[in-house]
């Protein structure tokens, strides 16, 4: 067993080393596509770790990504980049802590609705603030970051997120989260402080989203509230996680890769049909792929054995 773990770890290390070298070998367009993939792998994995396990469907992804983007837009002129990239997740964590404390004691539907409006709400407040206080609506981001740097930063984030989920699933906190997802009443009777666990994990995964938003913003030279807080991001992350399968470590990543390619293709060729395609993806996944691709693979494997 121990040897097996060492074997797996060394394979993973080799894979990461290979992925880190990829920008040296491929075109700039491919790097930008891979950047999107890595970003969505982190976002979908973080989303699924909280929402997949607790069944509290969060649509606040766009809000936290936007918080990261705006932290960079506001601070990158005044502070060195590494410091800004530390501050962004902290801001996301603190906001999520507040949102979580206010809403996570309530039942699922209220949480969905509140998180759904959160991105829009923060966007309105930012627009109001920019127009009335700073008299500007758009901001420029003057950071010299190459595509390769963004890629390496996101690769590191994805590795940390996947390793973090793998490790957290094996700690008491991870088990507590799973029990809450199975039956919150049982969890409470077993002595789990359910609100604390939920708020903590919600804040931690939201911090990841803000970090990803901050790194992604280095791609832009120009940002306004509509770009920063694009609520479509929440839905894209949600279907990626559903497509892959939310209960498993690699599930969300497996969903993110094909859907990033599909969305890239759609926005390039049929931009008007984007929203219809997103909608149909939702319906098809719920009716035909309830456990995601990973669930489908499990069923096939079971059938082969039988």
């Amino acid at each position, binding site marked *: 067993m121990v040897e097996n773990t060492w074997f797996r770890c060394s394979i993973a290390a080799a894979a990461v080393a290979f992925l880190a070298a990829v920008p040296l070998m491929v075109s700039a367009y491919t790097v930008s596509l891979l950047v999107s993939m890595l970003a969505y792998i982190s976002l979908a994995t973080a989303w699924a770790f909280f929402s997949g396990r607790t*069944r509290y*469907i969060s649509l606040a992804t766009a809000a936290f990504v936007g918080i990261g983007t705006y932290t960079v837009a506001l601070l990158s002129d005044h502070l060195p980049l590494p410091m800004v990239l530390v501050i962004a997740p902290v801001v996301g964590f603190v906001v999520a802590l507040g949102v979580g404390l*206010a*809403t996570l004691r*309530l039942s*699922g*539907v*209220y949480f*969905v*609705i*509140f998180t*759904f*409006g*959160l991105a*829009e*709400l923060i966007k*309105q*407040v930012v*627009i*109001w603030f920019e*127009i*009335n206080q700073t008299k500007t609506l758009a901001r420029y981001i003057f950071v010299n970051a190459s595509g390769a740097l963004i890629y390496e930063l996101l690769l590191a984030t994805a590795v940390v997120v996947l390793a973090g989920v793998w490790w957290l699933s094996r700690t008491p906190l991870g088990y507590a989260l799973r029990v809450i997802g199975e039956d919150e009443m049982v969890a409470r009777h077993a002595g789990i402080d359910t609100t604390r666990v939920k708020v903590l994990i919600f804040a931690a995964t939201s911090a990841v989203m803000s970090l990803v938003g901050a790194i992604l913003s280095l791609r832009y030279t120009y940002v306004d509230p509509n770009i920063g807080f694009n609520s479509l991001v929440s*839905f894209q992350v*949600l279907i990626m996680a*559903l497509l892959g399968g939310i209960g498993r470590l690699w599930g969300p990543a497996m969903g993110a890769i094909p859907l990033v390619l599909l969305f890239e293709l759609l926005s390039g060729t049929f931009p*008007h*049909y*984007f*929203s*219809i*395609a*997103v*909608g*149909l*993806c*939702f*319906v098809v*996944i*719920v*009716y035909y792929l309830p456990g995601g691709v990973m669930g489908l693979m499990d069923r096939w494997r079971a059938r082969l054995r039988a």
Partner: protein
Amino acid sequence: MVLFEAVLSGILVGGMYGLIALGLNLQYGIARMMNLAYGEALMGGAFTAFWFFTLWRIDPLASMLFSVPVAFVGNWLIYRYLLTPLVRRAANQDVLEADTILVTFGLLFVFQGVALVQWGGEYRGYTYLAVPLNVLGATVALNRVLAFAAAVALALALYWLLRSTRLGGAMRAIAIDPVAAQLVAIDVPRLSALAFATGGAIMAVAGTLVSMFLSFNASIGIVYTLKALIVVIMGGVGRMLGCLMAGLLLGVAEALGAYLVDPGLTLAINFALFLLVLLVRPQGLFSRG
């Protein structure tokens, strides 16, 4: 005086919020389905009124003869063929809730996408009954007053229907306990479908009324879904008069906020109220106990 005008315009819009919350209450309170594509019927009703009026000069009120039956049948089909199979499949209430939320999100995107492809994303509107009217010294447009009167009349008719008829009694029984309702020979699946379809039809009416005095575009549906949800939560799930009152309250709060603080912050006011209600009285402002 300007303050009075702000309150008055808030009340006029608030009647509309009360009406759309009543429709959502039929879908969520009685049929027990959280339909996030709810607002798309409003978008459809508004566009029907717009095209009938601009292309053929047909009165918006007459366009409801087309849009309302379509919305009724459409919502009935969605309930019967898209949502009922999920009920049969679901292991428990949480799973069902998550599944219906996801499927209706999908429907929301499909409807919105079709409208975007067909009609584009720009804001539309038309001039209908834009006659100034003097109400207690304040000036308001006749179309707003007409929309308010129609919304409140329909809401009160619905309230009477639920309160004083046999059919309404059966529906309220389902809202309280769908299993026990079956024991007293109430056809729960049929009446739930009827309540769900009626909710959608009400939204088409609301869409027609809204289009008379507010501009709208293909992605407006979700805004009204959100407002309806907030009003239902403020008024209390299953409480009809409570929803009407809460609708008026939201309308006035929005108008006052726009007048006293900033018109760009209406959504912030919506959410502040929502959060306040959830924290202080999660069972709704107007429910007993």
